[in-house]
């Protein structure tokens, strides 16, 4: 099975990073979350109800819908906060935050469980610094429009109805879904990020080059 990979790119001002990332990540997770499964006898199960909530952005002329789950929101905010801290407050720079949906595959001892991604969303962020309030106002509107386009892109991909993991049995539900939340059940996901410095190279490639150069001596 090939992992489906989708890339999105946005240019935002420093203070808009949080909201832009939350808007896109929550839009994706809205589509990749179900209600809690309740298994019954004979292998049947029922599904809980997913509520939704409108969120207005403060620094962007944009509103988005997220799943009504404070736990999920906290988890996403934490990841976005770490990403923003790594980007550096108010500095020009580029970074990429990735939302990866995966399945766990049980392995025999001594091997650990394998995580097999089936969908990866990569959001490239380009942070710009603006000189005056007028530019910021224009940026508010422009970024709002751009985020709207990205939401449409996300919806378009989701509605292609490509691969989705099979609905699991009760014993395997933790291999497909994140069952740790009380109110909703997103597919297993993880958020990672990568920061690129202003020179355009990523930190990891710089380190790799340093080590190679050292070994070459």
């Amino acid at each position, binding site marked *: 099975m090939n992992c489906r990979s989708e890339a999105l790119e946005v240019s935002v001002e420093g203070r808009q990073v949080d909201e832009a990332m939350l808007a896109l990540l929550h*839009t994706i997770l*809205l*589509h990749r979350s*179900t*209600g*809690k499964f*309740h*298994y*019954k006898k*004979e*292998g*049947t*199960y*029922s*599904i*809980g*109800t*997913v*509520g*939704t*909530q*409108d969120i*207005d952005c403060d620094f962007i*002329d944009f*509103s*988005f*819908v997220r*799943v*009504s*789950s404070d736990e999920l929101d906290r988890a996403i905010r934490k990841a976005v906060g770490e990403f923003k801290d790594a980007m550096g407050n108010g500095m020009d720079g580029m970074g990429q935050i990735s939302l990866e949906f995966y399945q766990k595959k049980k392995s025999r001892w001594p091997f650990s469980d394998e995580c097999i991604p089936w969908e990866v969303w990569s959001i490239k962020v380009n942070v710009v610094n603006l000189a005056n309030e007028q530019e910021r106002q224009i940026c508010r*509107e422009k970024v709002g429009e751009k985020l*709207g386009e990205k*939401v*449409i892109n*996300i*919806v*378009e991909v*989701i*509605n292609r*109805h490509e691969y989705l993991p*099979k*609905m*699991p*049995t*009760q014993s395997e539900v933790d291999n497909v879904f994140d069952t740790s939340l*009380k*109110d*909703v059940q997103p597919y297993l996901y993880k958020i990672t990020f990568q920061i690129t410095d202003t020179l355009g190279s990523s930190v990891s490639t710089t380190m790799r080059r340093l080590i190679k150069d050292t070994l070459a001596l």
Partner: protein
Amino acid sequence: MDSDLSPQDKKDLDKFIKFFALKTVQVIVQARLGEKVCTRSLSSPTGSDWFNLAIKDIPEVTHESKKALAGQLPGIERSMCVEISLKTSEGDSMELETWCLEMNEKCDRDIKVSYTVYNRMSLLLKSLLAITRVTPAYKLSRKQGHDYVILYRIYFGEVQLTGLGEGFQTVRVGVVGTPIGTITLSCAYRTNLAFMSTRQFERTAPIMGIIIDHFVERPFGNVGHMHPCIYRAPGEDEGAYNGVEDSQEVCTTSFSTSPPSQCVFTVRKAHLKTPKPALYCSRLSYQSPVLDGAADFCHPSTLNAANPHQMGVPGKEGGVPQQVPVQPCHGAQAEHRRVSSCPPADHVPATPSSSGEDAETSSRSVGVKSGSPCGLLETTFTRKVGAFVNKPGTKVTTASLDLPFAAFAPRAYDLEENDPMVQPPESSATSSPLQGSLHSQGSGESGGPAQDDFVMVDFKPAFSKDDLLPMDLGTFYREFQNPPQLTSLTIDVSSQSMAEDLDALPEKLAVYEKNIDEFDAFVDTLQ
């Protein structure tokens, strides 16, 4: 095509399509009500949340949807459309977008109805929730209020896009393949809002406090055969909505995990006492105004022939929100993309209500609306004449006017030379609109209070409710609406002659020269 489907699958599919259509309309209309929507996630299924999504049902919207469907289902060449339009306070209207639920002939015979189709419809509704916040009409709807309101119209049949103007854009929300055809949900939205920029704010700003209620529209059209009311929130007294079937059905979805082909979908009939989903009440909870002659301003000429229904939010009492601007709504600079208005302070996040209260509220709103001359879903405005009207000896009442803002049409006594706001009063006997009830008794040089010149009808500011506190803020606002005149503008000051001023001048100069060191030190601190 249909012969491949088992009778149970066919029945389930029809039911899914029907409820999908109803929920689609709910999502679209609720996204255009002008406020944020919030519903709660529930870990345990309630049995009444179709597609496992907490989408509240506004009864009036369900009623209109069913009226439009008239017992049919969206199908091939039978599209269901929701048209969103904007109507200004002057009666101009403009279509903003049209949402289309269509079906084409492309069938997916292998798809599982009770599992895959159901889940994909759920996914499509989530996509609809996301997309409804992205189109330009969303921002307009969030700012609706005094200057314009958003209307919706549901129709069935051929899609009409001519009203969207040139260059309209289309966005496809998604598709769901079924054994009888592929369901497509899309939106066509207007991009040219030039009408708004040229006409919206050319008129003078309305006097504070005036709201015209000519948006009230009567629902006309045939109340035809009512489609069976399958989904009904328990507790509502929906006498008007009784369908053909008396029993109530709830959606209970049970899925089987082994193997995927063996899907068990049960739809059982249950009695009325189904636990209601605990949803937050996303409605504005305003007091319903008592309006006599509210229908006087209903202008049939401005109504859309197909009776668009105004976006309003059923409130708790009578289901009619009252929008009272807090401050004068000045004409703002219009933009092509975004219309700015000075919204009243009524975009207050609604308080979550208990689940039981929701049912009572909606039943109350239905009950009141059925008896009122106004439309089922409407925004009713109180009409007041503001504090600055100066028509001595004339009372402006709501019943005496035929046109909106008629009191402010150019007339002899409204001309500038007669306007005391422009020409200051020449004598103390002339009453000034600025003098209000708080004018001090001591300075009795002015004329009588100006309260006789205008009529205030039932001032109920949106920001203050009198059910909890004795309207402190409202009382304060009313009392200080007409502040007393500044003492420097009183007659006492002006009665001083210039000669006396000149005589006092040398003394003042002497005092200033004496204290010149202090003044110099003060100037130094400023530098």
